[in-house]
């Protein structure tokens, strides 16, 4: 690197390397252009390639057998199964969250026995795999041939034959709710603990009752934090309901398995279930987004 510039004048090395060669007054940043980004173009190209290949697979592979998919997508057994999937998701989540709320309040209670029960509950129902839980409730009659309600160590007032109480549907509802309850409890606890303590102190110092402080100040703000993980849990529950096909309950997957058990069109029927699960998940995701926006007012 020469120290001599074009006009042949010797300059310091610094000046030579850092010489301003344009008048700053004439440069306007608003006329600036973005740098060329070859990495971006390559990324786009790769994405396009992948999309193309995926589409080629979806369209071209005959084993997918789209005509059969179309044949069964709106068929009665599938729609019936879909109905049960939706019902189980809703009932499972409602009961699971209700139970979870109780467990959560017990976990946060000042009374030690309640706290202990809550922690044990959470531990047990998080440890056992959901399928095992469902199988257990379905086969409850093996351990308890009759269920009775009465005075402890005394006479029973009501008695039921366990086999008539426990059906695939009741076992599914019990199993799914109990399975969800510890996750709901922890999600709610996280939300409740996220509310700044200062606001709770302010509510207390204003003389708001503990109930009012909880329902008017703590819970509304906790809801904002609870929604994303709870929405996640709901979507997971939607898929989790597919386990009930193992205890002979005809949900969406159960119906699909029955059909392909007869006509051996395994892949198309599974595609039917995939499509329906994706539709439902999209609806749930949109619902979650709406709820999150609604609870974000003031932030």
């Amino acid at each position, binding site marked *: 690197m020469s120290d001599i510039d074009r006009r042949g004048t010797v300059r310091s090395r610094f000046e030579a390397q850092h010489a301003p060669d344009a008048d700053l007054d004439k440069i306007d940043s608003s006329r600036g252009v973005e740098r060329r980004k070859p990495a971006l173009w390559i990324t786009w190209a790769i994405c396009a390639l992948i999309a193309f290949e995926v589409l080629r697979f979806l369209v071209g592979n005959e084993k997918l057998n789209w005509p059969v998919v179309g044949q069964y997508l709106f068929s009665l057994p599938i729609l019936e199964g879909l109905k049960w999937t939706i019902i189980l998701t809703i009932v499972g989540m409602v009961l699971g969250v209700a139970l979870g709320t109780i467990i959560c309040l017990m976990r946060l209670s000042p009374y030690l026995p309640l706290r202990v029960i809550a922690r044990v509950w959470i531990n047990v129902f998080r440890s056992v795999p959901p399928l095992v839980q469902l199988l257990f409730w379905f086969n409850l009659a093996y351990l308890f041939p009759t269920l009775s309600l009465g005075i402890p160590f005394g006479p029973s007032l009501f008695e039921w034959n366990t086999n008539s109480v426990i059906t695939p549907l009741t076992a599914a509802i019990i199993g799914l709710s109990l399975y969800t309850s510890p996750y709901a409890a922890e999600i709610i606890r996280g939300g409740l603990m996220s509310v*700044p303590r*200062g*606001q709770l*102190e*302010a*509510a*207390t*110092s*204003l*003389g*708001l*009752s*503990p109930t*009012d402080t909880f329902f*008017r*100040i703590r819970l*509304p*703000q906790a809801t*904002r934090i609870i929604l994303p993980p709870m929405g996640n849990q709901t979507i997971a529950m939607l898929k989790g309901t597919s386990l009930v096909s193992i205890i002979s309950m005809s949900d969406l997957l159960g119906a699909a398995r029955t059909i392909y058990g007869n006509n051996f069109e395994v892949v198309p029927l599974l595609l039917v279930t995939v499509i329906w699960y994706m539709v439902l998940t999209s609806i749930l995701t949109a619902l979650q987004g709406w709820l999150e926006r609604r609870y974000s*007012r*003031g*932030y």
Partner: protein
Amino acid sequence: MTVISARGLRKTFGNVVALDGVDLDVQRGEIIVVIGPSGSGKSTLVRCIDQLERIDAGSIKLGDELLGYELDGKGVLRRLPSAKIAAQRREMGMVFQSFNLFTHLPVGRNIWEAPYRALGVPIKEAKARSVELLERVGLSGKADEYPDRLSGGQQQRVAIARALAMRPQLMLFDEPTSALDPELVGEVLAVIKSLAEEQMTMIVVTHELQFAREVADRLIFMDEGRIIESGPPEELFTSPKTARLQTFLQRFAESA
């Protein structure tokens, strides 16, 4: 009439002794300003009066009523049920250093929520009063704004209005301007001064010595959990009796 009478207050947090035997009497209409170095127990004192902390020893009375406990027939000091304690807290308004506004509610609702829910004031009346109070603190028209849109000084003024909405006998301020930018301190102090002019009984914990000088009927200097000096502000500022107060005032004069 004595609004607050506290005797022998003691409070420890783990190993730290925050209050080490504090006696205090506050008369109706009196304005007490508490000053002192960090950790002197000033905040703990007002928090204990508001029953946000439970005192370990001593007693506090609001007028004739014992705070937090009742003496039952057999002479046992029993803790009051939470509903009664809430009722006692309603007699005192507290303003916090970090405002503690309800961020999920608009400003107006921050003010009328407690009177509506805790005092059973009809909602129209509660809302009307909240509009009045907003005007009182110089924030008319902000009722529908959310707290996060307001400056610190505005938020603190809303907090003052919120505390006033419960018509308390006594207002407690825990370093109300310590979290504010200097330009915003003045507007909050102005509101507090106007309350003082209306003879509201107040205990103000602050570092604003000039304000203390102008507003206090009685100045209290605390250090290490005890009241070291107490008296008219002019007296404490011009002729501090103890070395500790002298050092404290010197340090403040230096940093001013």
